[in-house]
């Protein structure tokens, strides 16, 4: 074994505090070290040439480069060694910059430590084994979880590149939150007018498959080869036969409050959530449908309704439809699950969600919408009278470490300003009062918009919190402080609109666990790097877009959607995926088949396999690593009491050798 040690000065970054010549001199005497030298910039072309030359001339077979952190140049030097004919996995980096020269002042101490660091690396490299890179094929299809504006935009981008893409949407139509909005800030385009064309585009694209009423049931596999189980809930209407004529819901005798309209209006038991729904196919709400309730009633004596089935000329109604599990493979996954609203019922000062005339921004959106339940009238839900004095309260749930979430929800300042404007447009006698902590209008034309609402639409902005809301004499009394004037304010309002914050959906944790992607303390999915990899996750092949990563407005959601699509497409364009061979390996002779590794593997990358044991003359189970799935975390090696399973590149022998060299 001939180990070569190459010590980098890194200009003066290393050599100023570490006596590199001394390091070279001392380490050259270490057992198995055949050659040791220094150079000003080892990562530069001449530096790499120096290494290659030394390999050839001195017959080196293993390399230690003493330089910066392996995160920066490990790949560089592996490639360099490979070019000189050495297996790239016989290279180790001794980090004598970030972990030594940059954190110590005393040259003597730093030099001694550097020598120790090199000694560790030499010990490790002496136990390195040549490894062969593996390649895995890529399933050239993308899964998008969530059919809101983010998911739709991602699908459009991927379909444009002519790759197949599947949207899985929980509701009966795609469109998500945006479909419920009236107008969008700051330009006041109507949400439907800009969303509908995109919905139509995806629905008509030959590359896009849309599964509505569907959820992800199970995810396994890895980048290039995700196996996904999707549950398609029974819609009770055959999507292929239905023409969307609407006869069924015209005839349906059942009326229940519409979730889509924030329960402000009614819908039928068979319904499409909104007129522009895609697919424009109704769904039966089995809980409320008379046919199903009669069927479920004991004895079945009740006469079943069945009107919709009778009226349908196309035979599309199918009461016997069952949930269906479909299993498909994808090369990449884009998570676009969006957000939900903060539940303000934790706030006693706002009446614990008990007052009918204290509503959220989304209620206001539905009321403002001309196709909404009130036909565009801003009313008091308690008595249906038109609201005149409306108080808006910002930061409900946001920026509240005690009862809500610590972060700013980013969009509430803007949508509240929009609401104040819409209020005035819908009723010119109305007056908006806005309680705020700070106005955060950092976006193109955002600040101008807020200013316009204040100046031209006469919204009164009050900087302060509301301490109490209560009902008295048919009005909602809002008491709060105006901290700028120092006065206590009491407003007799008709309606109070709470700008409830954006929070993660409750199911995110379950989804994160299925996908093996991290989430933060607020249950928002965590990006791989907050600045340099904002739409990637640490799990390769899984990308994030929209508000499931952090609160976002429509422009930002669309931008991250396109960004995620580019990342996914970049992957699909590869012929095959290179995979580091630093994965687990089983020594069958040592394995007892106790299954501890199978249980402990976070990725289900270990299976049991029955083998014929000649010595014991019987069949027995042993562990077997699924190479494509193993990520090389090494957890299995520790639960294995007999050390029958080990990790290439961080093997027990390598680490024990390092410890001995301490």
């Amino acid at each position, binding site marked *: 074994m001939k180990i070569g040690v190459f010590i980098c000065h890194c200009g003066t970054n290393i050599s100023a505090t570490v006596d590199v010549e001394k390091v070279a001199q001392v380490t050259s005497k270490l057992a198995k070290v055949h050659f040791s030298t220094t150079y000003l910039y080892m990562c530069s072309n001449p530096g790499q040439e120096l290494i290659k030359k030394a390999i050839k001339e001195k017959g080196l077979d293993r390399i230690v480069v003493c330089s910066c952190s392996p995160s920066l140049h490990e790949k560089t030097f592996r490639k360099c060694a490979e070019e000189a004919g050495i297996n790239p996995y016989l290279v180790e980096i001794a980090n004598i910059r970030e972990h030594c020269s*940059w954190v110590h002042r005393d040259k003597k101490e730093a030099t001694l430590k550097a020598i120790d660091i090199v000694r560790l690396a030499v010990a490790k490299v002496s136990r390195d084994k040549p490894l062969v890179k593996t390649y895995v094929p890529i399933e050239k299809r993308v899964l998008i979880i969530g059919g809101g504006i983010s998911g739709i935009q991602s699908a459009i981008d991927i379909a444009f590149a002519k790759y197949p893409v599947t949207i899985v949407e929980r509701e009966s139509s795609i469109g998500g939150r945006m479909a419920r909005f009236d107008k969008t800030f700051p330009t006041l385009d109507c949400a439907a007018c800009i969303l509908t064309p995109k919905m139509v585009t995806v629905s008509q694209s030959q590359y896009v498959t849309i599964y509505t009423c569907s959820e992800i049931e199970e995810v396994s596999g890895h980048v290039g080869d995700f196996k996904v189980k999707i549950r398609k809930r029974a819609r009770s209407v055959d999507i292929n036969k239905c023409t969307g004529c609407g006869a069924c819901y015209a005839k349906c005798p059942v009326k229940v409050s519409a979730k889509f309209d924030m329960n402000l209006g009614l819908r039928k038991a068979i319904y499409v959530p909104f007129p522009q729904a895609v697919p424009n196919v109704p769904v039966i709400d089995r809980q409320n449908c008379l046919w199903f309730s009669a069927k479920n009633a004991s004895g079945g004596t009740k006469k079943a309704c069945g009107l919709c089935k009778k009226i349908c000329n196309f035979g599309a109604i199918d009461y016997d439809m069952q949930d269906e599990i479909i299993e498909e493979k994808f090369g990449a996954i884009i998570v676009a699950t969006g957000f939900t609203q903060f539940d303000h019922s934790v706030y006693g000062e706002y009446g614990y969600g008990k007052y009918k005339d204290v509503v959220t921004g989304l209620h206001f959106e539905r009321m403002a919408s001309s196709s909404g339940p009130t036909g565009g009238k801003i009313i008091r839900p308690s008595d249906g009278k038109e609201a005149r004095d409306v108080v808006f309260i910002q930061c409900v749930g946001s920026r509240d470490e005690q009862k809500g979430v610590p972060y700013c929800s980013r969009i509430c300042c803007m949508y509240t300003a929009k609401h104040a404007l819409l209020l005035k447009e819908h009723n010119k006698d109305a007056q908006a009062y806005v309680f705020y902590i700070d106005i955060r209008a950092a976006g193109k034309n955002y600040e101008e918009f807020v200013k316009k609402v204040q100046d031209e639409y006469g919204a009164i902005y009050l900087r302060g919190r509301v301490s109490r809301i209560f009902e008295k004499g048919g009005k909602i009394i809002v008491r709060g402080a105006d901290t700028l004037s120092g006065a206590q304010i009491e407003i007799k309002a008709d309606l109070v609109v709470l700008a409830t914050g954006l929070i993660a959906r409750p199911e995110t944790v379950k989804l994160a666990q299925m996908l093996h992607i991290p989430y933060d303390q607020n249950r928002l999915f965590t990006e791989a790097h907050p600045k340099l990899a904002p739409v990637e996750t640490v799990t390769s092949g899984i990308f994030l877009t929209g508000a499931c990563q952090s609160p976002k407005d429509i422009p930002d959601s669309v931008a991250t959607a396109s960004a995620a699509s580019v990342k996914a497409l970049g992957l699909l364009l590869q012929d095959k995926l290179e995979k580091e061979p630093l994965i687990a390996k089983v020594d069958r002779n040592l394995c007892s088949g106790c299954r501890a590794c199978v249980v402990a593997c976070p990725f289900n990358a270990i299976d049991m396999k029955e083998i014929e044991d000649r010595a014991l003359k019987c069949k027995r189970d042993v562990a077997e690593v699924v190479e494509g799935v193993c990520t090389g975390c090494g957890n299995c090696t520790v639960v294995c009491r007999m050390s029958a399973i080990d990790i290439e590149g961080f093997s027990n022998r390598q680490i024990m050798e390092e410890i001995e060299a301490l």
Partner: protein
Amino acid sequence: MINPRTQELKNSRAESWEPKIAAFLCNWCSYAGADLAGTSRREYPPNIRIIRLPCSGRVNPLFVLKCLMDGADGVLIAGCHTGDCHYSEGNYYARRRFAILKKLFEFLGIDPRRFQMAWVSASEGDKWVKVVKELVEEIKKAGPILAKS
């Protein structure tokens, strides 16, 4: 029957003893955190020797045992905060394992200061420095491992 290397250490330590500490760092959070301490030029005592591993879940209790028996005065395991593990769960396993090992060590008379664990994220260069400084201080107080054993 002491390993010759530990004997040598024992002798060299008679005069001016400086603790030697082994640290197992996970590649994704703590190693990067220590890198950040470097890029931010934060100074800390030079007593620590870092062994890079993919995950804190890769640390075998036998590694820790080997360190202490081979003459390291202290051992540190650093990993991602819970929930941040690159492999989603590795640090949870490590936490459970070493909760038991730490208690066992104390039961068998090993100073608990000698074996510590910390969560250091990639953005916590400062925390890394703090952890190392405190650890070195505490192990200095605990004294050389061989003198005690």
